[in-house]
């Protein structure tokens, strides 16, 4: 028997504090507290957060052995557990898909699971059992490399607020119906989907992250959207599909998001938006404060129109970050149309709140320089404009600098920072 040299405060702390302590320990240490004393024997068993990460079992060279011991460990923990489990997370690259996982999900569905994150070994995709769709209290679901097929009787997750599907095999109808049947959905992230045509109806959606090969995206009913991040990978046939489409993508995508605060567009986003005739309907984004666009094709007038339209429709824009994306800038197919800027950018337009501009991968071609000229001339409160050239070419850089120096600056505080990496 151990001798007690001092008072034992920790064992008598209320269970909520013990839970707070145990959930901040790696799961092995938490379960190990059961042999501290008789009071501690089952304190771990009512933890409501169970996180099994890479370190939950000791590693050895035998991959299969590690896999088996993970399965045993998780099964034993669940078996000895008492009470509701609110958060369950497996992020382990050794765990292969196996029938036990089905049983765990069934167990969780009977124990009020609220947050479920499943990320298994990168191999075959795990087929999610239908009992997942019986988890009525689910508020957060994150699945990596799974196969998902909602049953016909599935009416939706009534409490789901956050959905993250990464490389999940699911039919387009199913994904549309899941999204629209979760009334409280606030955060949606879909990554690495193939050729997906998506229509999003989510009246409470605030955060949207899309990454993958999307054929078509229509934000039909997302009035509360606050943050939008899109990365559109393009294949040749999708590009073809775009050319033939006559819909206005700009409107379809950004037509119904008046509360947007932050917009991030990667890869082919601006190209996608440039398809179709935007018409003259003015949409003002009063809350849009930060725009980040990558891989913008400066040589494409339509893309520049999109960028311009975004900028001029956001009276409260504070931060702008644009990265140039064409690989071949020197040979423009048409001669640069210098009247373009004078026409499209009314001289009295001001970007009254623009403070920070960051331009990267600039090549110094006339289109870019005109754009910079436009920004400098219209931003009375500009503080920093940082420019990073794409190619380390002394002569080109000199040329750029000489032109930059000529430009009129509307802001007396503006600093131009030319970074050379």
């Amino acid at each position, binding site marked *: 028997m151990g001798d007690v040299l001092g008072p*034992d405060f*920790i064992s008598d702390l209320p269970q909520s504090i013990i839970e707070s302590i145990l959930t901040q320990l790696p799961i092995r240490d938490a379960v190990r507290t059961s*042999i501290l004393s008789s009071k501690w024997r089952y304190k771990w068993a009512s933890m409501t957060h169970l996180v099994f990460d890479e370190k939950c079992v000791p590693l050895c060279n035998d991959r299969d052995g590690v896999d088996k011991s993970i399965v045993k460990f998780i099964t034993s923990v669940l078996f000895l557990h008492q009470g509701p489990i609110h958060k369950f997370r497996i992020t382990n690259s050794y765990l292969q898909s196996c029938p036990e996982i089905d049983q765990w999900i069934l167990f969780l569905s009977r124990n009020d699971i609220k947050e479920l994150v499943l990320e298994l070994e990168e191999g075959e995709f795990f087929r999610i059992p239908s009992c997942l769709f019986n988890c009525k209290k689910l508020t957060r679901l994150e699945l990596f490399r799974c196969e998902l097929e909602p049953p016909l009787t599935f009416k939706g997750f009534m409490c789901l607020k956050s959905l993250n599907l990464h490389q999940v095999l699911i039919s387009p109808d199913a994904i549309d119906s899941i999204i629209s049947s979760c009334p409280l959905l606030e955060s949606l992230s879909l990554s690495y989907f193939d050729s997906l045509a998506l229509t999003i109806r989510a009246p409470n959606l605030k955060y949207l992250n899309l990454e993958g090969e999307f054929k078509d995206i229509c934000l039909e009913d997302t009035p509360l959207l606050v943050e939008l991040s899109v990365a559109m990978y393009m294949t040749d046939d999708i590009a073809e599909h775009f050319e033939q489409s006559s819909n206005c993508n700009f409107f379809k995508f950004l037509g119904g998001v008046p509360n947007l605060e932050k917009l991030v567009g990667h890869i082919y986003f601006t190209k996608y938006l440039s398809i179709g005739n935007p018409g003259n309907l003015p949409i003002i984004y009063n809350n849009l404060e930060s725009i980040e666009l990558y891989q913008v094709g400066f040589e494409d007038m339509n893309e520049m129109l999109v960028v311009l339209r975004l900028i001029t429709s956001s009276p409260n824009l504070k931060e702008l970050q644009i990265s140039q994306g064409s690989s071949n800038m020197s040979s423009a197919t048409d001669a640069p149309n210098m009247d373009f800027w004078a026409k499209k950018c009314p001289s009295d337009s001001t970007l009254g709140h623009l403070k920070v501009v960051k331009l990267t991968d600039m090549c110094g071609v006339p289109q870019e320089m005109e754009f910079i000229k436009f920004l400098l001339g219209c931003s009375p409160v500009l503080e920093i404009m940082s420019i990073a050239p794409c190619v380390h070419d002394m002569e080109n850089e000199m040329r750029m600098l000489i032109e930059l120096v000529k430009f009129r600056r509307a802001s007396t505080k503006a600093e131009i920072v030319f970074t050379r990496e």
Partner: protein
Amino acid sequence: MSEIDIEVIKPEMMKPYIWLQTSDGSIQQVEQEIAKFCPLICQEIMQKGMGSSKNCAICLPQQVNPAMLSIVLDYCRFHQLPGRSNKERKSYDEKLIRMDTNRLCELTSAADSLKLRPLVDLTSRALARIIEGKTPEEIRDIFHIPDDLTEEEKLEPLKNITDDPRIRLLNRLYAKKRKELKEREKLKNVNAEERVDERSVDDLLSFINGKESDRKGNKTSKNKKKNRRKKEQQKNSSPKDASELNKEIVEAHGHNTRPASSAAVRIGPTSNLDYTGNGTFIDDVEFDDEDIDDEIDPELKEKIDREVEDFARRLNSNWPERMQDFLSSGQERKTTLFTSDRPGFLSRHA
């Protein structure tokens, strides 16, 4: 005094100070802005209008003694200023939790009773960091937790998650040894008739100790043990006796037969080493029943099972009752001896 009148007339919100009463009964004055950072105090002020004077001082929960209150108020004073950078806040937090673990527990308790969630999170994270990666002995030392689990409870599957199977084996063997030592103590108080059993306990010890070293030595001791066992079996057990003992084992352990069988199973691997002479045993990773069964042929297995059961019985049996049995069987022999000589004795003990 006019001041008191003003206190009564003015609404509580206007007062910059409020009164708090700590667990020891002492009352102190605290700036309202800072105290209201604690949700409990805020609630008391807003909903119940307490704290505006010494008479209606807010009674803080018993976990909040003056020392803890001053730490909590320091925390509130620092964090309620909006102008602090995240870095500043973090470094303040790090400094704050540098205290001995008892005070840390007290602080967690106090913060929890005041419903000050950020401080609870901070202190419980600090406690988690202390516990993380330490062995149970170290943790018990730091927090003065009494070590009051039985060996068996400690050996329950999953609970003893040591990573090295060798350590697991050693733990089990040590536990066995400790048990036997205890029984040896008890046996010393019983008379000579039991010496036979004592020797078997000795044997068990060397049997277990011999495990780590010389297997050849074990083979000879095994033979000795076998012979002695046979002698004991003839002396002690009638089948009725055996079943009684089994029942006792079951009752003594209070729940199902699993402990007895698991004890048997645990001995399984140890006896395995002798009987099959499996040299690679200690290096064997798997302790599962199935694996061990696979290595023995069925005939040998039955023999081992029987001996293992016997062994378990010996270790787990309820000694006082057994002693009764010995004494009663001894008495019978005594009475036969004395019948002819002392009828009076017999009549007294009839």
